[in-house]
Structure formats: C-alpha cells, structure tokens
C-alpha cells in the first residue's frame, strides 16, 4: 500500500530523514515507532503530499503524492500529530464537514465510532475537553471510507479508558480490511494492536532483520526479582550467563536456550520470574541506545 524508496528530507542543516526504505502491506496495522524528532511526522506528511522529499520517493498504491495528490488523498485519511478542530462547530457538524469531502460515507462506522468514543455530537466543540476533541478528530478520520489510515500520535491527550476505546476502534477497522499506519509513544498499546512495526531512529528505518534478531536475543532473556536480602551474586547460573540489574529486576542472558536457566532458578531465592517474547519497549530501548552510540552489545 505504501512504499518508500531511499526517502530523504532535509530541513536546512538538519537531515530529518536519511534514505529511509520501507513498505506497508495492504491490510496491515503497522506501528511507527521512534523518539521525538525521528522523522515519523515527516514521513506521514510526505505520504499525504504535504511535504516534498529532498530525494527518493514515496508511493501510495503506486501513486506519487506529489504528482497525483488528489488521487492519493482520496485513498487516505490522516490525523496530524498536532491538530485542532473548529470550535464553532458542533461535533456532528465537524464529522459532516470532513465527510463532505469524500465520495460516499461509511454509515456503519459513522454510527459505531461516536458510540464507542461516547461523544456528545450535538454539543459545540468549544465545550469539549481536550480528550474529547482528540476523540472527535479520531472519529472523523477513522470513519472515512478510505483504504488507508495515517494516525500520527492518535492517543495524544487520551487517558487509559480513552486509549482502550481507540484500540477497540482499530480492531473494528482491521476487520474492515483498512491499512493502518499508526505512530504512538504508548508502546504497550501499539504492541497490542499492531501486527508489524517500523522503527525510525535518527531518520533511518531500522531493517526488519535487525529488529527480529534483537527480538530473538531479548526473548532469551529471563528477568527475576530476588527475595529480600539476596544479591545477584548469590545466584547459581549456567556458565557463560551474563546479567544486569535494572529497575529492581535482574536481567539474565544465558548463552543458549533459556529453558535450562529457568529450571535452574526454580530452587533459588527468586520471588518472581518473567520469561517470554520480548516486549516492544525493550526492543525500542535497545535500538535507541544502539543508535545513540551507547549500545550494550
């Protein structure tokens, strides 16, 4: 659905995007992850044709947004990272306003999403809280009858309940076969809802192979919380294991498969033990540290 080819973008002296290459398959829900300033919003704006690449190109459904902007924008609905809505309108009027630019409407989504987000559509937007405004913008963008949704920090300003509502909405849209590219700093939320991840660090897209290799490595790691009075040095670990302490947990990396380590820890002063698929936050942290030149190996 989206393909970026050696995409670069310079803002004065700042190279915001460096020959980024990636693709977003049709029907996927792809998480776009990276620290502030990594270039996520820049990429999304390029997809909409709002910014031009300095070099390289991006294609949406095989179309260049700069050459065929209207055709591209007919295929997508975009929630900017920092957006606002027209305060003089009622909620319903705002939805109708955005829908008036589209050919056709998705009646089902237009009924279900406001209910899901619990929006008072007959009230003026100026009476909405910040979270309600964000939900209204989301509602308008998500209910568009288009194949591609671009959501830049959609959970900004949303509390935990609202974020859960948003996740439910994404599930609904996934069922409808929408292609979704979503960026967020709530990595745990992203992980729950996305089936693919794109890591953007310092303007570069981290290759999928590197992410998977890191995930495999981190998945071998076992995290334990020791009983009171015990120190990591008191543990008996398989030869070649390494460990580090972070936030009260001992992170142990065995040389081989972790099953033997888990078995060995069963009889030791361990209060709690975590083992399994590496979490997105951990992968993100490792990649971030690597890119910042402080990688742990």
């Amino acid at each position, binding site marked *: 659905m989206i393909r970026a080819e050696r995409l670069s973008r310079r803002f004065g002296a700042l190279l915001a995007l460096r020959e980024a290459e990636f693709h977003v398959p049709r029907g996927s829900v792809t998480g776009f992850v990276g620290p502030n300033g990594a270039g996520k919003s820049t990429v999304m*704006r390029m997809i*909409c044709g*709002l*910014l*031009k690449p300095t070099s390289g190109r991006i294609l949406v459904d095989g179309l260049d947004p700069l050459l065929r*902007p*209207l055709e591209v*924008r*007919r295929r*997508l*609905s*975009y*929630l*900017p990272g*920092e*957006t*606002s*809505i*027209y305060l*003089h*309108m009622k909620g319903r009027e705002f939805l*109708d*306003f*955005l829908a*008036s*630019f*589209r050919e056709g409407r998705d009646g089902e989504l237009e009924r279900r999403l406001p209910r899901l987000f619990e929006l008072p559509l007959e009230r003026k937007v100026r009476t909405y809280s910040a979270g309600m405004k964000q939900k209204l*913008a989301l509602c308008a963008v998500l209910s568009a009858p288009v194949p591609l949704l671009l959501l830049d920090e959609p959970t900004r300003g949303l509390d935990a309940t609202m974020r859960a509502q948003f996740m439910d909405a994404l599930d609904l849209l996934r069922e409808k076969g929408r292609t979704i590219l979503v960026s967020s700093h709530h990595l745990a939320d992203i992980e729950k809802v996305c089936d693919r991840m794109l890591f953007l660090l310092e303007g570069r897209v981290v290759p999928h192979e590197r992410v998977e290799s890191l995930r495999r490595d981190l998945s071998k790691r076992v995290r334990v919380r020791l009983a009171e009075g015990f120190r990591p040095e008191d543990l008996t670990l398989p030869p070649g294991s390494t460990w580090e302490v972070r936030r009260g947990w001992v992170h142990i990396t065995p040389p081989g498969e972790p099953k033997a380590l888990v078995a060995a820890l069963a009889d030791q002063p361990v209060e709690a033990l975590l083992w399994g698929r590496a979490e997105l936050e951990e992968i993100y942290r490792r990649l971030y540290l690597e890119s910042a030149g402080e990688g742990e190996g």
Partner: protein
Amino acid sequence: MILKKTFRETAGIQLAYFLVLELMLLVAVLWWGDLRDVLAEISRLGFLSVLGKLIPFDFLKKPFLSLVDPAQRYPAYITLQHFFKGVDIMGIAGALLLGTFVLAKERENRTLELLLSLPASRGRILLEKTLVPALGLAAGIFLSSLSLLVLSPLVKETLPAGPILLCSIHATLVVYFFLALTVLASTFFRTQAGTAFAVGLFIATEFALYFVQKVRVVSFFKLSDFEVYYPILSGKEGLPFLRIELPLLAATLAVYLAAHVRFVRGELK
C-alpha cells in the same frame, strides 16, 4: 462546505463591518443639514473661494473648493465621508482582518494540516476561503452605498443610483486588492498577527506617502482618493476603466495568483 464554514467563521465580522459603515454614513448624512447651513452662511462672506485657492496641496484644495461650491457640496461631502473615509479606510481594515482568516487563522489554530490532507485541491480551498470575505466586503460596500438613495432625501438631497454604483465598483476593487495582498501575506506568515502586521505596515507606509506632496503619485491611495471618486459621484465622469480600474483589477489578480502559486506549490509550513 468550505464556503459555509468560512461564512460561519466570518459572519460576525462581516456584519459588524457593514453596520459600522452604515452607522458612519447615517451620522454623516444626518449631520449634513447643519453643515450645509454653516457652509452657506460662510460662503455668503465671499472669501472662502479665495482662501481655497491659497491652500497649497491639491488633495486638500480640491475637496475644499468643492465643498464651498453650492452645486458640488453634497457629492463632495459624501465622497469624503463615505467613499474616502468610510469605505476605503474601513473596507481596507475589513479586508485585512477577513483576509487573515483565509489561511493564517487555519494555520495558527492548527487546522490547516487536516484541511490540506482532505481530497480537495489547494486551489479550490484557497478560492472558496477567499470568496466568502470577498462577497462579504462587496455586499457591505454596495448595501451601505445604496442606502444613500434612502438616506439622502432625509436631508433634502439626492444622489443618482448610477454614480453610486460606479463608485461602489471602484471601492470594491480597491478593497479586493488589499484582500488579495493579505491572502498573499498569509502564505508567508504563520500567524494572523504576523500577517496583519506585514500588510498593516504596507498600508501605513502607503498612507504616509499619500501625504507627502512630491511622492504621493506613487501612493496606492492616489487610486482611491477624492480626485478619483468625486468626478464619478458628481456625474462628471464615468468609471476610469482603462486608467485605473483595469490596472487595479490586473494588479489584484496578479497578487491573488501569486498567493495561489505559493499556496499550491509550497509545502505545509
């Protein structure tokens, strides 16, 4: 929908603009009765036309001499009060304010990015957002000017509709130039205040130039002063189409086109 949205956003300002124009005109017309009597009394003394010839600046002398001439008084007075002071000054201020709503307000309120991501061409967005203030400004000028047909008999004066309409057309073109200029400025500046400041600076400079005798020929206000409006309103001349209207229209379209090109080809800033 952009037309409707823009109209709702600016309806209050447009109405206020019309009401201020109308109120200023009403006060001016109602005061005319007293002023006419005073001017008639002074004219009897016979030295006013001599005094008028001593006035050094043409742009002061011509209005003065027209005001002391009984046959020319009322059109001269309305030219000064309504078209030069009211429509030009208020109209330009209105164009400046409404013009900042076209792009600068959207940008400042962070709604522009969402709007530009919708499947509507930028040219259409700009045109529809400019059309609403343009129509509102013209409506204010024409309605308030045509109300002279009703107000003038209150002070036992008459003005024919034709010259009033021609003056209104000219005033509308003047105001449109400043609207186009504000739209162009708003493609450069991120805020309404920045846009208004830039255009305001231009207007202030032009106005200052108008009062400097030797350079006033290059002031934009030379295109919309007493010497332009009065011959039309008094029925002595028609619309100076080739000398003023056509170049003014061309300049306005050129400025709008520049704004269009910058907006359509430019990036989101």
